[in-house]
């Protein structure tokens, strides 16, 4: 029998989503979207995916929400779609949803998928945490390419908003309270991130969560002008940015030199290599995610 909380969540999510997209005021819908994100994170937690829920909360909701916020101030006047068209599309969507749901209902119940296989081999993978094992080892190729997606996207963002670094978020009025808060929060975030990476090998957690949290801190610094805008001109930024991808490249390429497979970890080195790789990735991900934000005006004094 399905617990009421699950039933509630499962029904609530689409309704909120619909509200998100139907609201006329964009800012409202962004706020609603963040709420929606948190709820779906909760749903994922209910599905025993706390790690994924964490990422969803940090990246999917927190960062995306902040990004959306930072890009508001739309000059487009909302154009309410013609009602008949809306109805037609809603009808089609409903039909599709029903069809897909019934298809999903046909999927084999109680299937374990590749779970057992992963558990059986996670010893060799060098990380006890199955998800991390899949991400960094069994399907490391995906993660490698995904890292490149992130990097390429950041290059794209930089090349798109070149020359307009000055425009972007109107940086918040920085009252001393905010300052104090930031100065408290940011170090805490850094510690938390480090902790997440370290325990990623054993329990839920890892580079992406950590990176997202660091990025959150960095954005705070950006908003409060405690940190100069990131640009590829800065040595430090470049180092942070490329640490992960370059290390990943080496991990992928070097084994080939010894007649191994691409991304093959040397026997027994899996654990430590992955830890190192994850820490490097954390830095890069944090940098990239921060770069996704409008950088604001160059700060008078440099810090961090």
């Amino acid at each position, binding site marked *: 029998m399905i617990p009421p909380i699950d039933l509630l969540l499962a029904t609530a*999510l689409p309704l909120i989503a619909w509200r998100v997209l139907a609201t006329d005021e964009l800012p409202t819908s962004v706020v609603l979207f963040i709420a929606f994100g948190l709820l779906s994170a909760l749903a994922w937690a209910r*599905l025993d995916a706390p790690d994924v829920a964490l990422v969803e909360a940090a990246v999917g909701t927190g960062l995306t929400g902040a990004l959306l916020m930072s890009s508001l101030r*739309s000059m487009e006047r909302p154009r309410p779609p013609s009602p008949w068209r809306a109805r037609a599309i809603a009808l*089609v969507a409903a039909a599709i949803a029903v069809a*897909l*749901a019934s298809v999903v209902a046909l999927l084999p119940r109680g299937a374990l998928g590749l779970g057992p296989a992963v558990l059986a081999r996670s010893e060799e993978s060098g990380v006890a945490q199955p*998800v991390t094992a899949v991400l960094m080892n069994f399907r490391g190729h995906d993660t490698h390419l995904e890292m490149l997606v992130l990097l390429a*996207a950041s290059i794209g963002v930089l090349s*798109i908003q070149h020359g307009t670094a000055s425009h972007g978020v109107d940086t918040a009025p920085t009252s001393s309270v905010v300052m104090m808060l930031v100065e408290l929060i940011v170090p805490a975030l850094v510690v938390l991130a480090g902790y997440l990476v370290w325990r990623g090998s054993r329990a839920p957690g890892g580079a992406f969560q950590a990176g997202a949290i660091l990025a959150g801190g960095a954005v705070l610094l950006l908003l409060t002008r405690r940190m100069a805008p990131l640009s590829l001109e800065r040595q430090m930024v470049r180092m942070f940015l490329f640490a992960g991808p370059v290390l990943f490249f080496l991990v992928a390429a070097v084994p080939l030199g010894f007649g191994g497979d691409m991304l093959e970890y040397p026997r027994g080195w899996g654990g430590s290599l992955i830890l190192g790789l994850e820490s490097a990735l954390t830095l890069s991900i944090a940098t990239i995610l921060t770069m996704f934000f409008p950088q604001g005006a160059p700060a008078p004094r440099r810090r961090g």
Partner: protein
Amino acid sequence: MPPWLAYAASGVSLFAVGMSALVLHGEVMRKILAANVSASGVFLVLVALARRAPKGPPDPVPHALVLTGIVVSVSATALALALVRQLRHGAQLGPSDERRR
């Protein structure tokens, strides 16, 4: 109905809602929101599929896929928003955005 199925159904309806909004709305920002909504719908389906076995640990592979998917969709969103900001910076939106889809 097992919980996972409820969530999966909820996921596909999220997907449908997002998609229809993506088709329906003219505003770019709303399209981006819609894309994110249906993305989280797909992810929810995957997470639900991982939890089909009533007990024991969930299938880690869909979780890994979702993590990858989230990062990809964040990258896409960031790129899209950068384009929006730049277009706005260039005062007017280009004709191909004015056209209603």
